[in-house]
């Protein structure tokens, strides 16, 4: 199966990328080749195989519910591209 330009644009939108026409074309060629290479996995019967999401036996790691020092507001905002009144400033979201 091959990805069309429309599908590629839809994926780019889902990924919040804004790709140029040229990027869509070159990326599409690459992705189609990549998808083809995944066909190899179909040779394997995995019907009754459990998936591995984590290679080491760890689950449900808890800590005590204690208040500990964390980053200050100043620190958190230190890298903000724009800030106002102690918050991250972004373009208007709500229409007036």
């Amino acid at each position, binding site marked *: 199966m091959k*990805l069309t330009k429309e599908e*590629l644009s839809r*994926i*780019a939108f*889902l*990924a*919040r*990328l*804004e*790709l140029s026409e040229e*990027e869509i074309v*070159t*990326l599409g060629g*690459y*992705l189609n*080749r*990549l998808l083809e*290479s*995944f066909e*190899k*996995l179909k040779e*394997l019967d*995995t019907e009754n*195989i*459990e*998936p*591995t*999401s*984590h*290679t*080491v036996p*760890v689950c449900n*790691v808890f*800590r005590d519910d204690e208040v500990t020092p964390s*980053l200050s507001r100043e*620190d*958190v905002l*230190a*890298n*903000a*591209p*724009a800030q106002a009144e102690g918050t*991250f400033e*972004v*373009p*208007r*979201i709500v229409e007036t």
Partner: protein
Amino acid sequence: MAENELCKLTAHEIAFLVRSKQVTCREVAEAFLGRVSSLDEKVRAYVTITEDLALSQSDALDKKIASGDELPPLAGVPWAIKDNMCTRGVLTTCSSKILYNYKPVYDATVVRKVVESGGIIIGKTNLDEFAMGSSTENSAFFTTRNPWDLDRVPGGSSGGSAAAVAADLAALALGSDTGGSIRQPAAFCGVVGMKPTYGRVSRYGLIAFASSLDQIGPFAKDVTDCALAMSVISGRDPMDSTSLDVPVPDYTKSLVPDVKGIKIGVPVEFFAQGVSPEIVELVWRAVEAFSVLGAEYKETSMPMVDYGLATYYIIAPAECSSNLARYDGVRYGLRSSDSPDPLTMFRKTREEGFGPEVKQRIMAGTYALSAGYYDAYYLKAQKVRTLIRQDFDKLFEEFDVLITPTTPTAAFKIGERTGDPFAMKLNDVCTIPASMAGIPAISVPCGFADGLPVGMQIMGKPLDEATIMRVAFAFEQATTFHKQKPKL
């Protein structure tokens, strides 16, 4: 001691000179900073050189020495840190435009541990953008050069760290390995590089690429330094819930040249992945050397190797597409100047900030995870991952370690593979299986092909870094490959 002689020493030799007061930490720092300022123009290992930090760290250590305080174990050892690990107040770019101005407000746990061990931080090293690549050619800033041949790549993604150690621009370095990003550049640059067991080392403050695979590990000039570095960085960290709460052995106990009774498996499939004849021969010669040293080896089979690449190129992009969603221009890094509304801001920022390889992987991963395709790709890949792990488990019932080539070829020329992303990816074919299974593996120098270093990979049981290093140490003691230096 002449500056350049000091830089050529191993970390344990430098630590000894400092401890026995034959040199001061300031002298060590100045020697390395001097060498960096004269040589790094050629090698380009560093994105940021942290001169002020290195000098203030060394002065603080010298003050301790003068007042007779107890010294930390590796006092005065100069380290390089891959630029995807957070350093408080010091640029941490991931070699990406999207983080061109990012100064973390906290240290990664490994960085804190390096400093607590008496380390001096010389700088932050170049990588393929967000650790995606095998040559540093995907860095948004520049390509690092291989110290053995400046027209060739150092490997990647941790190419800057590997080149820094190989060129004596640092005594130790940290890298991260997702599919081979420590072992492959270690092989290309002729140094020791270890990917520990998944969970052995805290990743708090490592900028995430593929969370089920990423692991931090050291680059070193010999196995002794690797063991010392592993002792510094290993262990449970409450800030990383994937780090394992298991005891960390004293890795220096692995430094005995004794492999009697060790059972070595040689899985033949790893030698059939387009591996050059010279490399096949060098690795086999190394394997045969072990029989002289008292170990036993046997050819064996690992059929799942053939499925490693496809599995990796589903799982890693899928996880990266999710991890890199955080770069949206709101909280840190680049924000596009063309941001009239939030959605346009997200899309323009990401379009301007990410390079082509990162975009490719985000697209592949987003597709693999999108509605209707999850089972066919990500879930399928995770199931194949189980099969890969089962193959390893079976082999480790019979063998203590497995030995293979680290890479199919020695370092390739800059530009040689940039046109064909698939040729580039083939480089990771021998290193990906261990990443998939979460097991530890090391690359150590095992010879030269046409004057370029060749690496041998030794893989071990989960959490058994100690046996890997023992085997590697025995080999190193019997050979001199690790002592050879590039001419710069």
